[in-house]
């Protein structure tokens, strides 16, 4: 198994935000975590990425217990993530945003990029950054400061940065939040293509059911910090409990 979440509990003071969550993810698999607001999706995401440490339980990645390992070390081991509101380095140019990701990956692997006294990124690093930018349709804005990118471009830049890390798993926190329907469809097919081409496993949290049904192999439904259902898209779709507590409200979409 690539990622195993084992009986994870999280308390915020007396509030029990995650109640014994367990599931696992195979390589190249894609899992969507859904649930109403306040169900604990974000908290679970934080426990997986290393943003916060669960009160009990364990997170295992490639057979290694990473429960207490900080985010940057998890990233080096192959766990990449994006944020709900795209986080990029606004003051840096688009190409530099990707370059720092490539440099970080190389450093994590102990690879020297260029001579010690070198100032500019070495040609192969730049080339890799340019190729990634091209793949995500950012070639025209390479020298633009990320601050003035459109929202969709920022989201794609963030994806490019995550891919520059050559991760084994990509964790996407609401990848299509705040997007227009056309952008949303394009993003979904982009993510699906990237997953296939890079043999990635993907975990997404998402509100948009169309996105979920298109991207996910399996769906994990949460409510009040618990796993309500976990199964294939069809299983979850036909689960009466899920329909009642979650999809019931959006039955026409489902």
């Amino acid at each position, binding site marked *: 198994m690539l990622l195993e979440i084992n009986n994870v509990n999280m308390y915020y003071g007396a509030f029990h935000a995650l109640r014994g969550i367990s599931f696992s993810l195979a390589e190249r698999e894609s899992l969507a975590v859904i649930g109403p607001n306040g169900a604990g999706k974000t908290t679970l995401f934080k426990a997986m*990425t290393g943003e916060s440490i669960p009160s009990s339980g364990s997170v295992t990645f490639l057979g290694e217990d990473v429960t207490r390992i900080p*985010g940057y*070390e998890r*990233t080096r081991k192959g766990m990449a993530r994006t944020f709900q509101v795209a986080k990029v*380095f*606004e003051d840096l140019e688009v190409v530099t945003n990707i370059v*720092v990701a490539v440099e*970080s990956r190389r*450093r994590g692997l102990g690879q020297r990029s260029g001579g010690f006294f070198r100032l500019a990124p070495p040609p192969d690093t730049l080339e890799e950054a340019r190729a990634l930018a091209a793949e995500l349709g950012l070639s025209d804005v390479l020298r633009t400061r990320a601050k003035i990118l459109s929202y969709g471009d920022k989201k794609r830049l963030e994806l490019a*940065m995550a891919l520059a890390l050559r991760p084994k798993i990509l964790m996407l926190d609401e990848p299509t939040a705040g997007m227009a329907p056309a952008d949303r469809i394009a993003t979904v097919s982009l993510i699906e293509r990237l997953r296939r081409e890079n043999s990635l496993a993907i975990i997404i949290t998402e509100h948009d059911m169309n996105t979920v049904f298109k991207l996910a192999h399996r769906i994990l439904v949460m409510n009040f910090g618990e796993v309500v259902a976990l199964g294939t898209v069809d299983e979850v779709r036909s689960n009466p409990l899920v329909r009642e507590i979650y999809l019931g409200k959006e039955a026409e979409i489902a």
Partner: protein
Amino acid sequence: MTATRTTIGAVLVLVLVALASVPFWASGGVLFLFGLFLINGLFALSWHLLFGYTGLASFGHAGFFAIGAYLVGAGLRFDFPVPYLVLLLAASAFGAMCAYMFGQIALGRLSGIFLAVLTVAFSEIVRKIISYTPGLGGEDGLSNIRRPVLEFGILAVDVSSSRGFFLFMLVAVGLATGGIWWLVHSRYGRAFACIRDNPERAEFLGISLKSYRLLSFVISGGTAAFAGGLFAPWTQIVTLDEIHWLMSLQPILNTFLGGLGSFWGPYVGAAAFMLLSHLTRTWAGMAELLVGGSLLFVILLAPTGIIGGITWLLGRVKASREGSARPERPELVPSGAAAEPRQDEKRYATRVGSP
């Protein structure tokens, strides 16, 4: 190499040549001020490395400066059997070591205003230690610090004269500045910029916030101590004023005055500040008012400092020549060094607020 970079390079060479000529025409008092400019500029640069490039605020930087000044001052005053260069480098290394120890404790969980407050506490501790250490002169400080003779094997360079020591400082400050220039333009600088810009994103790109913040802190502290180690033989007196909180304010003011976010800002600010204090030296009581007033003026009207103001003006001149639209006013904080508080890697830590 871009056209701007070539221009900056040419200006730098001119400035260096001009500075090297100062000891040959200036009076003792003026030369003294030029020397202080070099020291204050480097001191401000060390602070700017931390704040402008890594996004960490230190309000107690005088602590590191004083460590260097007192160590070198005591070494020269009491004739330690150590060559000055070794003394200077050892003092810098000690400053860097103190920064490392402080950073190890503080940087794991703190950044922003909490860190800034802790640095004030640090400088106060250094102050107390120095004031109670016998031999360091207590409130009177160390006076009659002699200037050294530099020994390079068989070659000895006497820099005990003002002229000689000024030229020595020019070389030393130039080398230190060159080192920091390399640092902030290298891949380390890129990692610093990431952390300043968005610590959370940096962490999830696999950049260790603590390691890089610590690196920046250590180099900054070491450089501040280095500046202090030049200060002691230059002024030939070191007192507790060098660790007063006003001294910690100095690099901050110089950086803001010169231009936050531009590499040469601290030096431009230090020069402007030196000029202002010199011009107002006879206005007893009015000097502080004028200095404070001009700072207010710069911060309100040219928030990017002198360099930002000049860049903006040049842009306007160019735009009016080409008949195009007026350039945008400079942003308040160009480097994003002091963006709005946001969640840091630890849930309880926040970044520094707007200046």
